[in-house]
């Protein structure tokens, strides 16, 4: 499979040859902090020198978090995460993959959603007090929340209140959002783990659904969904007929402010797909700042540290160590709440809180951005 031409083309496409060996990527990489064998700089060099048929590249390609912190630091702006993704696609299409967390069940659920005829029952969380529509201009893309809510039940994660709180915010603003009963997974994790074929199937099915509903704006409560719909669904030849926004972006653009302030303090975990991949750092902070007192962790904004895992690949002791350090940073702020805007950050950090060796020294109240903003915007009891 190691066709030298393919690798050379990818090295050119992602401008990896511009690497000046400065090592800033490795110095910044959250994974390299805990796993000394992982080095983006060395990885790039070995791909250039030896191609991808060597054990180092073959194993490390799946360990990268694709969090994009290295691109922030790289003096040449090399998009290492996308380069890694392109290599993963080569491996995947020749039948190789990394270690899939949870036995591959989550990738399986995503691929199953790529089947054309599917009678999903994904809207049962919509209680009578929530107003949603089948057609209209603004669509709320729920994403995998119903699946995660069930799958991670044992972690005590409640994912569906995120969806309900998002609809509550819209309703309080006088908007009845469209929620599609046949919505599919956005495909983010399949794209990033190399399964581009099924990513495209999901994308095409979702785009057909959006077109049929006639939507003009799509708002997501998940950082990954908004990044995927905004940047990966767009085709250079045919621009998207709708605008995609993360909830924080939408509320900020609409000039929404909290009408009720909580006495609690909070710190914000920037999801990589929101802060670094979309440049959205200030909007959630301004909104949260109007609802609660905000304190920052040591690493925040585009320098924020990873929640330890992405695309349900290689959850290992290094993931755990990164999560533990992130939770320690959050607790050091002395805030009452840890707020995220990505359901996966919440799942990963909640899982790490259960570390038995730390005897509860990592626990902290963790909430989604939507769940902080809903009572603040609606003026209800939090």
């Amino acid at each position, binding site marked *: 499979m190691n066709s030298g031409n393919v690798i050379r083309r990818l090295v050119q496409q992602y401008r990896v040859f511009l690497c000046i060996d400065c090592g800033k990527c490795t110095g910044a990489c959250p994974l390299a902090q805990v796993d000394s064998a992982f080095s983006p700089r060395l990885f790039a060099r070995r791909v250039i020198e030896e191609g991808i048929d060597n054990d180092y590249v073959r194993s490390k390609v799946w360990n990268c978090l694709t969090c994009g912190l290295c691109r922030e630091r790289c003096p040449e702006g090399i998009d290492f995460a996308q380069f890694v993704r392109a290599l993963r696609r080569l491996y995947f299409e020749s039948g190789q993959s990394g270690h899939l967390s*949870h036995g591959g069940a989550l990738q*399986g659920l995503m691929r199953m959603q790529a089947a054309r005829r599917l009678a999903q029952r994904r809207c049962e969380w919509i209680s009578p007090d929530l107003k949603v529509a089948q057609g209209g201009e603004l669509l709320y893309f729920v994403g995998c929340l119903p699946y995660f809510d069930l799958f991670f039940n044992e972690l005590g994660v409640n994912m569906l209140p995120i969806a309900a709180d998002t609809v509550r915010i819209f309703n309080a603003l006088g908007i009845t959002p469209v929620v599609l009963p046949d919505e599919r997974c956005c495909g983010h994790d399949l794209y990033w783990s190399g399964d581009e074929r099924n990513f495209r199937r999901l994308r095409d099915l979702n785009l057909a659904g959006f077109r049929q509903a006639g939507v003009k704006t799509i708002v997501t409560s998940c950082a990954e969904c908004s990044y995927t719909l905004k940047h990966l669904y767009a085709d250079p030849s045919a621009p998207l007929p709708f605008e995609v926004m993360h909830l924080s972006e939408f509320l900020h653009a609409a000039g929404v402010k909290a009408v009720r302030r909580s006495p609690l303090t909070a710190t914000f975990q920037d999801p990589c797909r929101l802060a670094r991949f979309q440049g959205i750092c200030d909007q959630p902070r301004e909104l949260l700042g109007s609802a609660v007192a905000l304190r920052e962790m040591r690493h925040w904004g585009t320098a924020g540290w990873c929640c330890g895992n992405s695309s349900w690949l290689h959850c290992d002791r290094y993931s755990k160590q990164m999560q533990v350090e992130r939770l320690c940073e959050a607790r050091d702020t002395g805030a009452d709440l840890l707020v995220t805007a990505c359901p996966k950050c919440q799942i990963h950090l909640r899982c790490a809180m259960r570390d038995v060796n730390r005897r509860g020294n990592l626990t902290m109240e963790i909430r989604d951005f939507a769940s902080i903003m809903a009572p603040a915007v609606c003026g209800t009891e939090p």
Partner: protein
Amino acid sequence: MSICHSRGSILAFCCNWAAHRCLMALSRKGGSIPREITPLSVMCSGRIDCAMVLGAFERGAEGVMVIGCRDDDCRYGVGPARLAPRLTTIRGLMALLGLEDERFERLALDADQSDRLQERLGAFARRIERLGPSPFADGDRGASIGDHSAEARPS
């Protein structure tokens, strides 16, 4: 012998104790099980998780059975207790995907219940036939890792 050579669209995870004994007793008696059922041995029904059952459906199974010992009869003590909460998750995820609940069955047996096993396997096969193909069984499903022989490689 039909038990070993059956190939079909129903996967039956069989634990290595009660379920296996029943299957062996059935084969010694010259009994058969429906051709569409493929038995797959696992050490214990407590080994079964969401990924294994959903993975079977994803790869085209039209029905999945988990056959093991009764709760108080597990060789390892904890198998059925470990399985129980996963059954709830599996059924819930199937419902979300729109897969009929009847496509999945958990069967707990005593080691001497080969007749009951034969009867239940037959009933399950008839039920699946009545339900027809699953949304993932007609080739219009997401392919699994390593299942990309027909795909064009990037040039």
